[in-house]
């Protein structure tokens, strides 16, 4: 292939003269992580709640939970992004809608992106939490009730503390998905890592240098997340379960 590599471009100034291209991309990584982490907080909160409610014996609550999961699982992420960015502000009360639309960049894209990703991911978290709770022996719940605990107390002191520790390993891959999925936010104008790699390619015409740099940054980020989560998994492992003896390596 006759492509002339020109790696020095990474240390040239970007047109906005905020710094070199490397710096420009690393700020992008910052936005990627800021989006992913904020979305992850929302996803965990809603996901844990919805996942737990779907295991309760209350019929209509389970139905509502299933409806929530089906809606946000069956619409592509980019379409959900557009709904949050273009459609939702139109259905808000006039004053609030105008305020949302006039948010200065990058917040105008950041806020919808975080909400969208958070809710999109919460559905996946809810599925994992539900599976985690259902994987516990039925006797645990029965024992709780037999001891005189109320339903809420059983969940709070017996079921959830175990379930959350069981679902942690599968949640690692969900967290990596949030980081990757945050790149879809470039379609609503958020300059995160992939968006900045594309912008760099447009400014400098160095296509493959820009994308190689972004790819390497993503790979390193993944590596850090995997290592950190592995350490965390070791810490919260439930003693006595099969998983505790030979933990699955992510």
């Amino acid at each position, binding site marked *: 292939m006759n492509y002339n590599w020109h790696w020095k471009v990474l240390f040239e100034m970007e047109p906005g003269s905020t710094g070199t291209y490397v710096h420009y991309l690393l700020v992008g990584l910052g936005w990627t992580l800021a989006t992913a982490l904020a979305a992850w907080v929302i996803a965990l909160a809603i996901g844990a709640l919805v996942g737990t409610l779907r295991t309760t014996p209350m019929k209509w609550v389970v139905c509502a939970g299933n409806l929530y999961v089906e809606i946000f699982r069956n619409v592509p992420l980019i379409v959900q992004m557009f709904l949050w960015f273009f459609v939702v502000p139109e259905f808000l009360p006039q004053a609030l809608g105008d305020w949302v639309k006039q948010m200065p960049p990058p917040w105008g894209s950041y806020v919808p992106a975080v909400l969208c990703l958070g809710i999109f991911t919460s559905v996946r978290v809810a599925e994992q939490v539900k599976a985690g709770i259902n994987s516990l022996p039925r006797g645990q719940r029965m024992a709780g009730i037999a001891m005189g605990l109320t339903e809420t107390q059983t969940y709070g002191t017996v079921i959830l503390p175990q379930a959350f520790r069981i679902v942690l390993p599968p949640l690692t891959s969900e967290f990596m998905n949030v980081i*990757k999925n945050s790149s879809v936010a470039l379609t609503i104008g958020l300059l995160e890592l992939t968006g900045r790699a594309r912008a760099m390619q447009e400014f400098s015409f160095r296509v493959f240098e820009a994308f190689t740099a972004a790819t390497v940054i993503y790979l390193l980020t993944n590596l850090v997340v995997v290592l950190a989560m592995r350490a965390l998994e070791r810490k919260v492992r439930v003693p006595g379960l099969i998983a505790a003896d030979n933990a699955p390596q992510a």
Partner: protein
Amino acid sequence: MFSGFDFDVIQRSWTYLFMEGMTFTLTLTALAMAGGIVFGTLLAMMRLSSIRPVSMLASAYVNLMRSVPLVLVIFWFFFLVPYIGAWIIGAKEPVRVGAFGSAAITFTLFEAAYYCEIMRAGIQSIPRGQVWSGFALGLDYWQTMARIVLPQAFRNMLPVLLTQTIILFQDTSLVYVISATDFLGAAAKVANRDYRLVEMYSFVAVVYFVLSYGLSTLVKGLQKRIAIIK
């Protein structure tokens, strides 16, 4: 709430949305599924190979594809495919590849990594005795794979493969970033031309929901039937 809704824009652009946009989306999904499953199965066989370099190469490929965002992969191939094409046919200049060709190659290669993991689980779920009996009957590796292991693995994994295909169907909407005219792209073009963003994007969401939900219900039904036969 829907008082200001202009349903007419959907009716006006119906043919364009479905004949052009949805056709693109479905053709791309079908091609990427077929190519992805074939390539993914080969990758799975490579990953399970006892020859170290082969299995390491396949693992590296799968892990690379799975740690990079799809949007970035789409960009990569959009620019890379013309160079690879030129390299293959020995041309001096990068060849011209349309959005569809580029997207088909991208999704085939990207989804192959995910289909590979599914097929690997499928192959691993077959008892080892099956392979031994194949060899004992005098079949070679390829015959054992093609006649004994893969048909069973494929059948066991069919619901998971189809679920992955529904994800692929949703993911094809990301070709928006290279301005391809898939279903979403077509809707976005109409939306921007007629300034009917609310109507078009809501409609797109409803159509995707109905199709994905319908397909996943079918897959669930299939899963039950397969489970009974086993």
